[in-house]
């Protein structure tokens, strides 16, 4: 074995010194408005991928000095990241529960869109699925999103409302994975958002779930308190909630927030 001996204290000392050098906290927020171009990081639910991409383009067009960077993932993963100190400026979640998890780190969450569930099946609906009741059939392979994922929790609510017990073959870790299992033909049906079926391509189609069984997913958006770019982040939120922003979201199949 190659084993040149090193003075025993040297290595750990070096390590500590270097780590300490790298550990400095970010300097305080720069004076708003002036200085280098702002870059806001928007953490958004995976189901918002297409719609927010479009909104990002509109935002940059209207605010040339500000860059928008997106981090799309399951809301539960994003909430965990923000709780662990990820540098988010805006958080848009697919449910209020994940927004509540970071309640002390964001200010003034507001709903901006809603989404409904749909049954996703192969194009042409070869298994003749007409509603949630059919998902209990023994000859079907059904995939759901895992209960940790908002889509999975909503699916369970919908199935409970319909009084249907499903034995899923898999609980996928995000709603898009459930879509792909159906579009690959591995599963016969799944419960996903209407917007996922729209985005799912020509191998899949949706079977509507009646309003009385359906669950409306409400999407809240909030400013992250630790953001260095409060002003720009708020501008992005304003765009999402503006009539133009709402129009973009509707174009991707989202519904307006139900008046309460």
């Amino acid at each position, binding site marked *: *074995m*190659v*084993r*040149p*001996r*090193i*003075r025993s204290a*040297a*290595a*750990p000392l*070096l*390590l500590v010194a*270097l*780590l300490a050098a790298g550990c400095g906290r970010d300097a305080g927020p720069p004076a708003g408005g002036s200085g280098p171009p702002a870059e806001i990081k928007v953490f958004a639910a995976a189901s918002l991928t297409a719609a927010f991409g479009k909104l990002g383009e509109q935002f940059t067009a209207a605010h040339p000095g500000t860059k928008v960077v997106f981090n799309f993932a*399951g809301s*539960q*993963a994003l*909430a*965990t990241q923000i709780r662990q100190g990820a540098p988010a400026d805006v958080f848009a979640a697919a449910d209020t529960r994940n927004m509540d998890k970071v309640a002390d780190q964001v200010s003034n969450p507001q709903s901006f869109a809603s989404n409904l569930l749909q049954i996703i099946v192969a194009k042409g609906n070869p298994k003749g699925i007409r509603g949630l009741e059919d998902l209990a059939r023994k000859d079907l*392979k059904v*995939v759901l999103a*895992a209960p*940790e994922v908002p889509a999975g929790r909503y699916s369970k609510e919908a199935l409970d409302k319909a009084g249907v017990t499903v034995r*899923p*073959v*898999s*609980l*996928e*870790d995000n709603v898009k994975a459930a879509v792909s*299992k159906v579009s*690959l*033909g*591995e*599963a016969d049906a799944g419960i996903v958002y209407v917007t996922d079926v729209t985005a799912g391509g020509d191998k899949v189609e949706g079977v509507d779930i009646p309003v009385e069984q359906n669950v409306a997913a409400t999407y809240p958006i909030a400013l992250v308190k630790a953001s260095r770019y409060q002003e720009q982040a708020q501008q992005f939120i304003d765009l999402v909630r503006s009539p133009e922003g709402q129009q973009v979201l509707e174009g991707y199949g989202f519904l307006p927030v139900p008046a309460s």
Partner: protein
Amino acid sequence: MTGIARRGRAGSAAGVPLLFAVPAALAVGFLAIPLLGLLEQTSWRQLASELTAPQARLALRLSLVCSLGAVAISLLLGVPLAWLLARVEFPGRNLVRALTTLPMVLPPVVGGVALLLAFGRRGLVGQWLDRAFGVTLPFTTMGAVLAEAFVAMPFLVITTEAGLRAMDRRFEDAAATLGAGRWTTFRRVTLPLIAPSLGAGAALCWARALGEFGATITFAGNLPGSTQTMPLAVYLALETDLQAAIALSLVLLVVSLAVLIALRDRWFPTA
């Protein structure tokens, strides 16, 4: 080995160039600090209750079943393959060896997608399996076993082949001259002689199978009790129940360490 050691002894503390000492120390810290983080966050009082919670117990048992199944498949198919690679000259041998080791470097998620396209319900082989036998592998425990075997078998094949190449073949020749058939020679002479590398290979294979995540969640899906192995349970628990995730991670860490310690002298049987 001894030659290198002698040369190494000449390097005293003063002889270690800073250029090497600093990045080396950083590397050690980089690799070791995450493990410390895991230990630091562990709630030792909760550990037992976390590991005996129903979901964790299901995942532990399933991981044990699947990883041992994957080792069994690897032994059954991988040892003959290793023997062929080590002992028989055949055209395309290097290509076969490259193909066999590909899963070691392939991203496991890619492996999972490939498995779906091959053994899925609409897959190359899978559609035939479905039609002829009514067998579908995705979303089944067998699917999880296959996903683990796919990524873990190369470790067994490589280690066993190295063992076969390193052993003294004169013992086999002697057995043959004394009238032993091929199978008897293999069973009574070859196998005992390569037992250390076979054991090392099987242990590596098992550890890799136990930690498999990407291919499993892609090909076999995620259902507690049938395909949700420990790494999958860790991943999902991470988002809702950090302590459960840490407890399961700790089990995986301890197993990996145990395999490492058991194999420290046999890591490279040919060296």
